[in-house]
């Protein structure tokens, strides 16, 4: 399929990283993770448990077009109320498996900055704030970060502020998937998305690129994945993160 866009690849890549039976969370402004979780639940992770900031367990949203991830439409079909506070408690007691998070800057150790570009006290750019990331990334079993841009401003050698650090396992970008190496706790190239070459990744990343021992070619997106993606997100809300 040559007409697939980066949003399709990123969403499919994130869905594939969810294992069956895992308890999975995403935060605000996260259409692609929200759709990826539903995709995974249709395919290989039917027993994944979905908890979201909208406050529900196992919601099955029918519409992702809302601009607020706290919107009730994202809690549609839920089995039980589950507040953000419940999610923090779940993570604190070691029972949250996956959290989808992002950062304005991500470094080679998988740490993130959502606080400020420049100094914290006199910021050149004041960023939104870390939200729940500094409580979740240190406590969740697997942090999966995603970026809609892949350049040296986003993937940096050194963060201006370490808003959150901890258990990042994967980073997904429009060019590549990185996985943290157990040897040195640094992100290594795990896979290239079909549209990217390794030179693009090296040129556009602020930290050194090495291949992960599990490096492999990104398995092509299947017809089944595309079919479910269209079924879950017919309006293409996943593309909105790129507009």
């Amino acid at each position: 399929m040559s007409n697939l866009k980066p949003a399709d690849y990123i969403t499919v890549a994130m869905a594939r990283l969810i294992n069956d039976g895992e308890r999975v969370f995403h935060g605000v402004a996260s259409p692609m993770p929200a759709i990826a979780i539903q995709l995974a639940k249709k395919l290989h992770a039917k027993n994944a448990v979905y908890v979201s900031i909208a406050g529900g367990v196992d919601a099955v949203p029918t519409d992702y077009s809302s601009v607020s991830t706290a919107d009730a439409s994202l809690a549609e079909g839920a089995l039980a109320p589950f507040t953000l506070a419940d999610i923090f408690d779940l993570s604190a007691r070691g029972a949250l498996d996956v959290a989808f998070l992002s950062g304005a800057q991500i470094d080679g150790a998988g740490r993130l900055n959502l606080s400020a570009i420049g100094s914290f006290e006199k910021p050149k750019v004041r960023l939104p704030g870390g939200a729940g990331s500094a409580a979740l990334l240190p406590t969740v079993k697997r942090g999966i970060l995603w970026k809609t841009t892949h350049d040296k401003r986003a993937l940096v050698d050194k963060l201006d502020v370490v808003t959150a650090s901890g258990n990042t396992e994967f980073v997904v970008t429009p060019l590549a998937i990185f996985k943290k190496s157990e040897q040195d706790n640094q992100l290594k190239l795990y896979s290239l998305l079909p549209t990217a070459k390794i030179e693009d990744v090296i040129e556009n990343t602020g930290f050194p690129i090495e291949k992960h021992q599990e490096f492999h070619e990104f398995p092509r997106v299947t017809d089944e994945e595309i079919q479910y993606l269209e079924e879950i997100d017919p309006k293409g809300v996943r593309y909105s993160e790129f507009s």
Partner: protein
Amino acid sequence: MTVRTEEVSSRLYGWEHPDTMREYRKKHKSFAKKDKRTTLAEAVSRGVKDGDYIAFGGMGSVRNPIAAVHEIIRQKIGDLTIGTKGSQHDWQLLAAAGNVTKAEVAYGFGDEVRGLSRPARAAAESGRLKVLSETTNAGFQWRFTAAMKGLSFYPTRSSLGTDTLHYSGSKTIIDPFTNEPVELLPACYPDVVIIHVHRADRYGNCQIDGNIAEDIELAHAGKFVIITAEEIIHDEVIQQDPALTKIPYFVVDAVVEVPYGSHPNQVPGLYSFDETHWQEWLDASLTDEDVEQYFNTYVYGTKDHYAYLEKIGGVRVLRELEKIEKKLAPYPKVARRRGK
């Protein structure tokens, strides 16, 4: 290494000694069940003072007390400290209008998928708004929880090893049970709390549908609690199903009926975002001149919330927002920040 200064990390904001709060409650928080209905102008002038620490109920763009925010701007109440615990547009309006000069930040400078707020950013980057501390949504939740429980701190292991911990005002000690580090978050007792709810009775018993966020803890933590309700309902409706009452009357100081009080944001089940108005604000937010013009038109230029509702299009617009929320009309084009 990030530059760290003790000034940021060691000061406490919103904290009180638990015994001071016991005394405060004895003196100022009447448990009397009395009619607390008033006007928005009166509730705001009585509850919100220059220099107060203020926090709002709701979450993200849901149930934000925007009408009360407009009234704070109209009354030119200044030098406020905001706890940005997870909502954006409410306090960003105050930052844009200059009412807020200090902030404790969990999430606040973004408008979720609409991007960063230019006026709020400009306030912080120019120094007009001082960021006092950085914490997490969980941090605020737990700080209000400590206040609700009459404690001076809340212990957690969640943020150890991050700069956020350093900037949060928390302290790290050795947990005497595990002999390992534990983070102590300072309790937060806001001077004034404003919560927008679906329904309340005249005494302040509140029903909230859907996402409750941390409104219960917040209501119990606040020194002065203003409830703005979409509807004031008869006492008997509350008694029909007390399990629906999320906030009991005795923590509430003022109750105001404010229909469409979250506009241009949403109240679950009642009305959706006003994307047209949002686009107008996002366009205006690009320059200081247009921000001022926006406030002149919609806030200073309207004597109260009812005049504001007429200005934004009145019944015709509001009915449409209700239809969108009930999925009787299609969701409109999402407003986006344009230009630079």
